[in-house]
Each structure stands twice: as C-alpha cells, then as structure tokens.
C-alpha cells in the first residue's frame, strides 16, 4: 500500500531502495515527480534540502514527470562516476561528476517542467505571495531574481517558486511550486546572511555554473502549495553593483510583450498561453526595476505596491 510521508520521516535505506527501484514519487505543488537513480549525494540532498516535502515510495497513481538520474555510460557508472538528468526526452545535458547529482536533479526537474508542462503557462520567473496577491519577477539569470525572491521570503511572503511562474490556463491564477531557491557564487553569503545558516544547503563546488547552494523552502510554504494567488505586481528586475535605484511603470502591452519570450511553453500552448498571460494583468501592474543592492530593490517594491494601492483607491 502506498503512503504519503515526508522525506524526513524516511530512513536513508528506504530512500536508497526506492530510488534504485525508480519508485520514489515526489509530490510538490501541482506535479507528481517520479525519481530514479540512487547515489549518496542525491540522497544527502533530498534528506537535507527536500526534507519537508511529501513523497510516496510505492506510488500507484499517474505521474507528471519521470526523472532518471543515470550514468552517461556503463564505464562512468563505476569509474569516476558521472550523472546526467534523463527526463525521458532528448536534452542537451553535460555529464556531471556524481558529487553534483543535486545539480543534475534540479536541472532535470527544471527541464521537465519547462519543456513538457501543458497544464500551465510556464514563465521563467520568481514568484512570492502574501494575502493580497502574488509578485512575479521575470528576469534573465544573473539579474538578482533569486536574491530578491529570498529577501521577500524574509518579509513574510510565501515562496511560490524561484524558477517558474505557473499560470493557470483560463483563470491566470498562479500556482505554487516551492522548490529550493538556487543560489550562485556571490549570492550565497548574501542569502545566508538574510535567511540564517540553517536554511542554506551545503555548497556544490566547481559546477559549470560555479559554486551552487540552495535556500530550502519552508515547511509552511510546502504545506500551502495548494493555495493559489492572483498576480498583483509584475516586475522586471535588474541588479548591477553600484547602479542607482530606478523604477519605471510599464504599460500593459509592453509588459506582456516582455513576458511572452520568458515563457518556455508559449509556442506549445499558443492561443491559450496568450490569453492566460493577458489575464495575468487583470489585477496586476508592471514595473521595470534597476538597483544596486537588495535594500534598494525592496524599497522600490514598497513604492510600486504603494502606487498600485493609491491608484486602486
């Protein structure tokens, strides 16, 4: 019989055995993700960074994602072991040393959601929410999106996602998918300072993206991952050291045209994606933000929220 339990309630032996058999089903947000491919670094990562997530060891239901973390060839299974994420379709994945299995795991989940999800419009963006609605932050990698997402968590916002805005088809409501926040290089100490040491995973050193660590999702965010939200603020943030803080309200058409290229499945969904992205702006206003520090970015967001409220009043 299959039982849903938290990762932290499982023994290492149970996780290992389930990963070997390819029967570990991770429930997170709207997705059921079947994981296979046992390795010590992956088990360490799941027990540390995914400890509050719900899993099933012997699932009987359908799954959204099947991610196999496998060796690129038989030689690399035993001699200087390597791992590649195999989501069941062709992806350009570089084999990584087995110590970087956490990175392969995160990449594999990202690719699966980005390229094969048809239930939501997927937009590369960080999303947080409070009781009044969600803030969506769309930016290129390296623009400070993850740091800003992590900083907003410390202000009491719920984590929806650091990687994807999942926009409901039809209603354009945002769906949480609270995976760990990926931190690179110099953002690691910044978020460690903001969140506290206990919230940061061990660092994966020397990856193709440099040093990587993860800011764990809080148990409360994981447990509330069924609670959706309407967007209230859509931001296009850009961080550059020393930059003077700057904020510009965007007209809706411009903001939509900037969000469309950030969607990973717009071409797949077509008309439905266009309608959903347009509806995102039913209650939301959009801003472009530039800043040189986290404090500045938070002040600009406060100003934008105040302007939105003033306008609504």
């Amino acid at each position, binding site marked *: 019989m299959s039982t849903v339990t938290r990762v932290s309630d499982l023994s290492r032996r149970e996780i290992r055995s389930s990963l070997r058999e390819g029967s570990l089903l991770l429930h997170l947000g709207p997705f059921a993700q079947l994981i296979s491919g046992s390795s010590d670094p992956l088990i360490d990562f799941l027990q540390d960074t995914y400890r509050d997530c719900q899993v099933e060891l012997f699932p009987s239901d359908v799954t959204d994602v099947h991610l196999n973390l496998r060796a690129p060839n038989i030689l690399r299974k035993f001699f200087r072991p390597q791992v590649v994420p195999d989501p069941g379709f062709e992806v350009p994945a570089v084999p990584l040393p087995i110590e970087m299995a956490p990175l392969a795991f995160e990449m594999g989940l990202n690719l699966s959601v980005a390229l094969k999800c048809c239930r939501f419009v997927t937009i590369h963006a960080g999303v947080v929410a409070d009781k009044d609605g969600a803030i969506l932050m769309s930016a290129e990698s390296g623009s400070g999106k993850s740091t800003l997402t992590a900083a907003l968590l410390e202000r009491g916002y719920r984590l929806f996602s650091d990687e994807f805005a999942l926009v409901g088809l039809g209603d354009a409501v945002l769906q949480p998918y609270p995976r760990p926040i990926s931190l690179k290089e110099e953002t690691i100490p910044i978020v460690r300072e903001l969140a506290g040491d206990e919230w940061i995973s061990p660092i994966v050193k020397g990856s193709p993206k440099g040093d990587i660590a993860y800011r764990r999702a809080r148990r409360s965010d994981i447990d509330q991952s069924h609670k959706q939200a309407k967007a209230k603020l859509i931001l296009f943030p850009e961080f550059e050291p020393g930059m003077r803080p700057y904020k510009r309200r965007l007209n809706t*058409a411009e903001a*939509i*045209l900037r969000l469309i290229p950030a969607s990973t499945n717009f*071409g797949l969904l077509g*008309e439905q994606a*266009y*309608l959903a992205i*347009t509806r995102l702006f039913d209650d939301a206003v959009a801003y472009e933000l530039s800043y040189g520090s986290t404090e500045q970015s938070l002040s600009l967001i406060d100003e934008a929220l105040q302007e939105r409220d003033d306008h609504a009043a």
Partner: protein
Amino acid sequence: MAAGPITDDMKWRSSSDGYIATEFDDTYLVFVKASAETHFLNFLSFGIVTETESVAQTATELAMNLRRRFELTDEELTQELVSLTLSELDDTGLIWPETV
C-alpha cells in the same frame, strides 16, 4: 510569407478568425493563431486589419477609407505610409492579397 512588391491593383483581405486582439490605450496586442506570434500594432495598423475584414481593398481605397474613419488629411496619412504598413502587416500573416 510576404506577397512581394505591393502594386495598386492588389486587394487586401483579413479575417478576425485568424487572430486575437487586445486593446490597450489605442494600441493593440494581436496574437496571430497561425504563427503563434504576438504583434504590437498602433491604431492605423489595426485599422487596416479591421477595414479589410468585410471587403477586400486596394492601398488607394484603404487610404481613403482610413482618412475618413480617423479624420486625417492626405498629408497626415499618405499613400506611402499605407503601402509600407500593408507590407509590414503582410509579413505578420494578418492580411494577405486576395487572389482573383
């Protein structure tokens, strides 16, 4: 694919079945279903699309009808501007020359 050089005897046609338009402050976002591409049109460009829905028109006819509709003079809306806009709209797939 664009139709090539625009001549004045070409009549242009569009269909509202082929796109979804959303208006924002006199400008329009238009999603073209066939290409899954989204275009940002001003009132004149979108005016050409809507004008050619009911009846196919030449560039000269369009210029006359649009001047009347938007209350513009010959200098404000030249024949050249209409032809240029037709060429750009042709590239998007929103309008096409009617074949006889």
